[in-house]
């Protein structure tokens, strides 16, 4: 008979794997939106856009890294919390 701790670990691994897959799949939905966002703000034309637009462009630039960090944080956090590390 499996122990309760073992069942929890298996559940956490499965949950984390689901979050990871979902997060990676979501990336494909985010990428074209970011392209549209950057294009509409003319982020490539640094010399002609306003400072506020530049900040928005920087935020959009950081979206994907932030998203990846978020997903990996959830995955690692989920696993480590179940393991009580």
């Amino acid at each position, binding site marked *: 008979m499996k122990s309760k701790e073992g069942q929890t670990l298996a559940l956490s691994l499965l949950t984390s794997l689901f979050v990871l897959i979902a997060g990676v799949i979501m990336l494909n939905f985010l*990428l074209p939106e*970011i*392209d549209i966002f*950057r294009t509409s703000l003319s*982020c490539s034309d*640094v*010399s002609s856009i306003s*400072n506020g637009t*530049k*900040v928005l*462009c*920087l935020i959009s*630039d*950081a979206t*994907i*890294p932030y998203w990846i960090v978020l997903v990996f944080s959830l995955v690692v956090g989920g696993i480590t919390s179940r393991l009580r590390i």
Partner: protein
Amino acid sequence: MKKMFIIAVCITLFISFTSASILDNFDTTLDTTNLWGVSTSGIHTLSTSGGQLTIFPTPIAGQGYINITANKTLAPNFNSFSEIHTLIDSFLVSGGDLTGTYYLYLTDNTNKIIIYQSSTPLSSPGKNITEKIYPNLNKVNYSINGGSETEVDISSLSDGSSWYYGVGDIESDANVQLILNNITYTSKKILTLLDNPDDIYYQLNDGFLFNASITPASGITLSNATLNIYNLNGSLYSTNFTTLSGTSETYVNFNNTIHHIGSYLWNINACGTSGGTTYCNTADASRTIIFGYKINSQTYNSSTYQTSFETFTLNLSSLITPTILLNYDGVQYQTTRNADTYSRSLDINSSATGSKNFFWEITINDSSSNTTALSQTINPINFVLCNSTINTSYLNLTFQDEINLTSINASIPSAIFTYWIGSGNSNKTYNYINNVENSTFQFCFTPNNRSININPYIQYTSLGYQQRIFTTKLSQLSSSIYNKVLYLLSNADGVFQTYIVYSGSGTALSGVEVNATRVIGSNNVVVGSGTTDDFGSITMWLSPNFLHTVTFFKEGYPIKIKDTFPTQGTTNVFLISNESNVEPTTDYTQGVFINILPTSAYLDNGTSYNFVYNISTNYQVFQEVGFNLTYSNGSLIGSNSSTKGVGDYLTLDANTSNSSRIYMNYYYTINGTTITHQRYWIINIITGYGLTHFFSSLSNDINFNLYGILGSDGTGNFSKAFISMMILILITGILGYKYGFNSEPLVMGVLFGLVLFLNSVNLLPSPDLPMKVSFGDFLAYIIGLIALASIIREEIR
């Protein structure tokens, strides 16, 4: 139907030895007319004139033999002889089909005992039958022309009947006659017949015996026998003695006493006594024995010519592998061995003539022996302008205008023909000068049954034409004349083209064979040739209107071929040695300086860069330098190269789009060895989604004065310093306040990480400093060193 006709002259030969006493211990020759009782029978005639016994059979086509008949029953009592009797019958077989095979036999019309058979006609000069009759009469020992003896048992011949010699024609297709003459009678008290080894016998090992049969005549008691072995010059090599006894035929054996390889003569002398008198007898002829080796065969040409390449072979079996030298005309030559065959090839001297002796010097275990000398006749060879004596044309020179191909007359101010038959190591030369213009020059060679090779050096010219030189080797010319057209170019149609040939190290090469050819009609013909002088230079008179193929060759160098239009100038040609014994330049990096641009390892995407390969040397000589640029998928962007010996500054513009990397494969070639290196640049492609893009954008935005961060002076040093200080203080302060900093290395590590990050995003100020490194980089280095020192100091404690 083939009929057997027997044509015979039967002559009863009654041997009447009436007195044994007159046949004492000496050799004598008897008058055959007195010795032989002769009668005729049948249809045959007999002539006894001149001491000859000649039988003239009636010729019958298809079959023939003749008989000489002796009546055995009428023969004397051989058992009572006090001597050993020997009859030597000289005979001729003539007439009939002399190309057929004949045989001699004894017969009594019932039995036929063949005593000799020859594959060649027994014709002139005739042969001798040596017939030795033993006392018991049961055997007769025959030998033909002193060769090996054949012992024939005649006991099968029926007594009381006639027995006689016969001569037969194996093919039975011709008539023959047998002529007996000069019958010699010999008697001896003791007969010594050598048994083994046979004459001219090769003995490979020591385990053998010399033996002979000793037959005493009636009343003789054998006493001793002596084996004598002689060197070929007649001096005694060794002797061996043994005692004998008895009054009957005795076989005597001697152990071998030869201990040095070589050729020897041997014989046995036997002695006996009768009534206090000693009688001795040595075999009629000594025999030859070759000890230690056996010559199986020799091959050579008995006749040859000057400059030929002659091969001599000796097949020999021996006890131990010998050392064999060929001694040819007094000069020793090493041989090569293949199993039992030893061979040596020689270039026959160009001035040698007449008969030259040669033999093989065989050495085994410090014991040497020479084979019998043989001779080879050397005949002269001559290559000259044809004359009444030497008139077999081998080479015919004619001349044509190279442009319009019309035949012209030309003269030969100087020509040297080097010619030979064999390998060329031995050759003869023929100098020829003729300043009179002729349409043709024919050269002849003798002997006309051999091919020759010629290295010509022909200077030829004609009025209104520039002189040219023809040096192309002509191989295997034969009596089927070789017609060679030499082309001349008029003074108005050509230019002087000079080639200077250098080695890979830049040294001028002399003696380089240069041939210039071009296509005339459908043939590629030589229009200029020669060899370079001491300055490596050769000048040719060539037409500038045609493409020429110029070939450069020198022993030890690869052939270099250049297709060119002559331009009345000087062209440098490099030949790179391929000889292994030429000292190679092994350090191809010595004195080579290379500079590659751009220096940065990272290039921006979609940007055009000027790629530079700058190579120079103060030590080597480059044959070629160059580079090529490729994308990461291997597709070629472009290339550039140079053949300047001191290097070059090579550039190529290329755009960085569409690839993650750009590779530069740059090389230089020295002495035929190409040294290749590779450099690559990483193309910084910003995808717009990663941290790289974020920080790149941040840095870009700052450079574009985001929120006035660059300030009034446009450098943004104050703003960047302020922001950097704020970030450093806040992060370290918060971390320290929240979690505590308990060690100096930890604080320094955090500071180093933050400074490195701020520098990478261009947030550290960059004031002008009197040093090449930027302030941000300098600060990162300093903090990094302090952090490292702090860690080390903490670990040492």
